[in-house]
């Protein structure tokens, strides 16, 4: 304060800005990836541009995929790894070109000329300089690069930041149109890319053209769910299927909380439970008219429950104080037993972290139920992927084809020789086969970062946790039990162009702030209603614009 106005203060502040922006999607935008600038796509126009879908099922999953509605299916689960890894790409895909690629990395950056990169370059036949960049500051870094027109040849732009990056505006100005290379049957030149479902390509399309190459696509994306400590609840004789209504869940909170021992039932579950009341993602259409979620009575009911929860004493005080960073530690330590979160957390790393202190650690998730306990539950499907890479518009035709061939290699299916190389490196150097599954060596742990090559292109998501089969079984079982409740929300997978003047109405920051305060017991439901009333006039402008420019022209995308 007094003598402290030097550069450091300013810098750490600015970095906090970047950091906070980076965290924002965790809280609110998981299901909102579609609301972005750039031209929307018409169903008909898009149909001619979208690549044909040709699955390549060389390997039979141990836990097969379960189909839900149209375009909805669970991720296949694998408990084994093939000893004989089939090749899916002939020869090397590259022709010796030299490129740079930038991906966000949430972790430590491997040294730039390590043995894994060298082995990959040899396998790919290109000199691809991978430049991982701090994921937490990515939202600040990319706009500076675009403002100076310094984009690399290949770039990953997470879709949850599309509006921050202005991806729609970059498409065609700084990012290359891939339609001429991939539309329809042209994609058959790249069979591994052709095995990525159309929905994922749609998530990377702008104005009837294909720009993005999807990674980790899935037909079973949900914004998040409500986890619980299955080991602890099992020991108390409580199973998830006993909880069938919001009232049950509330009562469970009272039962599990023991503040004197430092145990509270709930961490933050805000946003993850809203669908249980039938609250739409953002919009729903009734009698051909758009209705915002703020305008639905279900929304206020859900809010009321969360407000009461915050006031009930069964939420951990640190959660009420917004200490999000330590949420996972609270969960591992058993100081909270129920916590909201993304399904991406349900994996091997989580199992290893959780069982470090308690070897019985087991993560579970409540099945979707309806708040009243009687209606049919429903859960909106998320966009097919959020991890999308783009090529620089300055690249020539040959270069784009070379990089697409490289992408085809990177997108090789689970268990293939190429998949093993991309995900586990060279056998004997980066991994060894232990009990039939690839296990990292020290060099592998250091250099084989999944957020590098796999962030440029990868096959559709599979569930596989070598060494922790229980996790794979639990997660696939949860998906299978809930897939029937999934539905496509309005404007699913659509990239919508919003004029800058509607950005404020779309963000509805004052409403969202009040909702957040309400869910933490700081403001009442009536305060939220007041904030919604104040937002209404700009909200109506937004709705009218969406109705005439999107709904009437392109439909709901469902």
């Amino acid at each position, binding site marked *: *304060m*007094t*003598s402290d106005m030097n550069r450091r203060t300013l810098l750490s502040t600015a970095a*906090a800005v970047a950091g906070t922006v980076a965290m924002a999607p965790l809280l609110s935008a998981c299901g909102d990836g579609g609301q972005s600038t750039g031209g929307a796509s018409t169903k008909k126009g898009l149909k001619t541009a979208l690549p044909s879908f040709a699955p390549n099922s060389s390997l039979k999953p141990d836990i097969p995929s379960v189909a839900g509605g149209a375009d909805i299916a669970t991720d296949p689960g694998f408990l084994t790894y093939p000893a004989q890894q089939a090749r899916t790409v002939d020869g090397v895909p590259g022709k010796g070109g030299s490129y740079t690629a930038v991906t966000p990395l949430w972790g430590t950056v491997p040294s730039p000329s390590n043995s894994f990169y060298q082995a990959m370059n040899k396998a790919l036949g290109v000199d691809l300089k991978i430049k991982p960049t701090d994921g937490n500051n990515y939202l600040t870094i990319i706009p500076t690069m675009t403002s100076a027109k310094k984009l690399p040849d290949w770039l990953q732009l997470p879709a949850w930041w599309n509006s921050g990056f202005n991806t729609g505006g970059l498409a065609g100005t700084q990012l290359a149109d891939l339609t001429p290379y991939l539309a329809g049957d042209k994609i058959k030149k790249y069979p591994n890319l052709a095995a990525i479902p159309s929905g994922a390509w749609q998530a990377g399309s702008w104005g009837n053209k294909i720009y993005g190459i999807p990674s980790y696509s899935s037909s079973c994306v949900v914004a998040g769910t409500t986890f619980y400590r299955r080991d602890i609840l099992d020991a108390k004789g409580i199973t998830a299927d006993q909880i069938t209504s919001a009232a049950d869940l509330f009562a469970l909170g009272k039962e599990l909380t023991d503040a004197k021992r430092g145990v509270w039932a709930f961490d933050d579950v805000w946003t993850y439970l809203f669908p249980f009341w039938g609250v739409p993602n953002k919009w729903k259409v009734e009698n051909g008219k758009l209705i915002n979620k703020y305008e639905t009575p279900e929304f206020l009911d859900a809010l009321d429950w969360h407000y009461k929860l915050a006031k009930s004493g069964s939420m951990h005080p640190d959660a*009420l*104080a917004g200490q999000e960073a330590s949420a996972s530690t609270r969960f591992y330590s058993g100081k909270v037993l129920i916590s909201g979160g993304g399904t991406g957390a349900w994996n091997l790393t989580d199992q290893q972290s959780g069982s470090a202190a308690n070897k019985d650690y087991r993560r579970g998730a409540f099945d979707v139920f309806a708040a009243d306990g009687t209606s049919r539950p429903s859960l909106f499907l998320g966009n097919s992927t959020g991890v999308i890479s783009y090529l620089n518009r300055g690249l020539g035709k040959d270069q784009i084809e070379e990089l697409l061939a490289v992408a085809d290699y990177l997108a090789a299916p689970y268990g293939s020789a190429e998949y093993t190389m991309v995900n586990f490196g060279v056998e004997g150097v980066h991994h060894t086969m232990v009990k039939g599954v690839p296990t990292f060596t020290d060099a592998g742990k250091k250099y084989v970062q999944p957020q590098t090559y796999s962030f440029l292109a990868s096959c559709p998501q599979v569930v596989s946790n070598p060494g922790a089969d229980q996790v794979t079984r639990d997660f696939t079982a949860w998906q299978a039990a809930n897939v029937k409740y999934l539905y496509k929300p309005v404007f699913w997978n659509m990239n919508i162009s919003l004029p800058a003047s509607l950005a*404020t109405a779309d963000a509805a*920051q004052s409403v969202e702030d009040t909702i957040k*305060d309400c869910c933490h017991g700081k403001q009442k439901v009536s305060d939220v209603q007041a904030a919604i009333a104040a937002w209404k006039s700009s909200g109506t402008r937004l709705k009218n614009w969406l109705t005439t420019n999107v709904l009437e022209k392109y439909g709901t995308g469902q």
Partner: protein
Amino acid sequence: MTTTMARKTEKNTARKPSQPHVRLHWRIRLRRDKSLVIMTIPAVVLLLVFNYAPLFGLITAFQYYDPLVGVWHSPWAGLEQFTTLVQDSLFWGALKNTLYLSLVQLILFFPIPIALALLLNTVLSERLRNLIQSIVYLPHFFSWVLTITIFQQMLGGAGVLNQFLRQHGAGTWDIMTNSNTFALLVTSQAVWKEAGWGIIVFLAALAAIDTHLYEAAAVDGAGRWRRMWHITLPGMRGVIVLLLVLRLGNALTVGFEQLLLQRVAVGHNAADVLDTFSFYYGIATNNYSYGAAAGLFKSVISLLLIWGANKLAHFFGEDGLYRR
């Protein structure tokens, strides 16, 4: 080496009455002060290039700025961003919070590093003095995230203090999420983190005081407090006034990151200040021009404040930022 010592007690206490000021012709003054002007050139050039040249960015406050189109091609908004701003109740709420927190910190925080420096100065043992000094300045290097985590773990609803109270049947003490006492919480966090760092400048000022002045005063019969009042404080006066003037000029800046991190804990109505306002309602929601307008508003008011604070310093016979 021969030394003579001039004991000039009045050096720190009284200023010479200013002589009638004869204004010399500017050419004569320039020739006289040529070296002094040349000395400022490197700093001035750096500021012109890296601080003044980017000021073209300010025009985004009068636009509907679109980052992709750039500053030169974004549509004009005239004063619309500003008229929206003055009608925005959230903006006025943020301004009110800013001024309130600033005032509380001015009263409760500003004097503490000075007091601490004076206290340390009375410690005779040099080793002890150095030890304490190097301990208390460390929290400055902790991030706000860490600082608040530590506060939460000590004083939060599940923290050490409240768990102790709970286990002994006493009621809990809600400090970390109480919006009514938030100003005190924010100030005590700032004191913990920055007071030790803040004393450094004052220690430098203390080191510049001629110790023989104390001896002379003691010989003249001045006691401990009188010496502090007549020698120590006047010796620090220049830097105290400078920092006070700058603090007043910065009244619209209060711990951005600190408040951002505790916004959920106390609710946005209590925690929003001007900087968090332009962040949340500007940058974070892609409404850049609105954020720029709020920023420009803040800049103008800050310049007025520093100008006023400087005038005030002159009124009380102090130098402030520059001499009268």
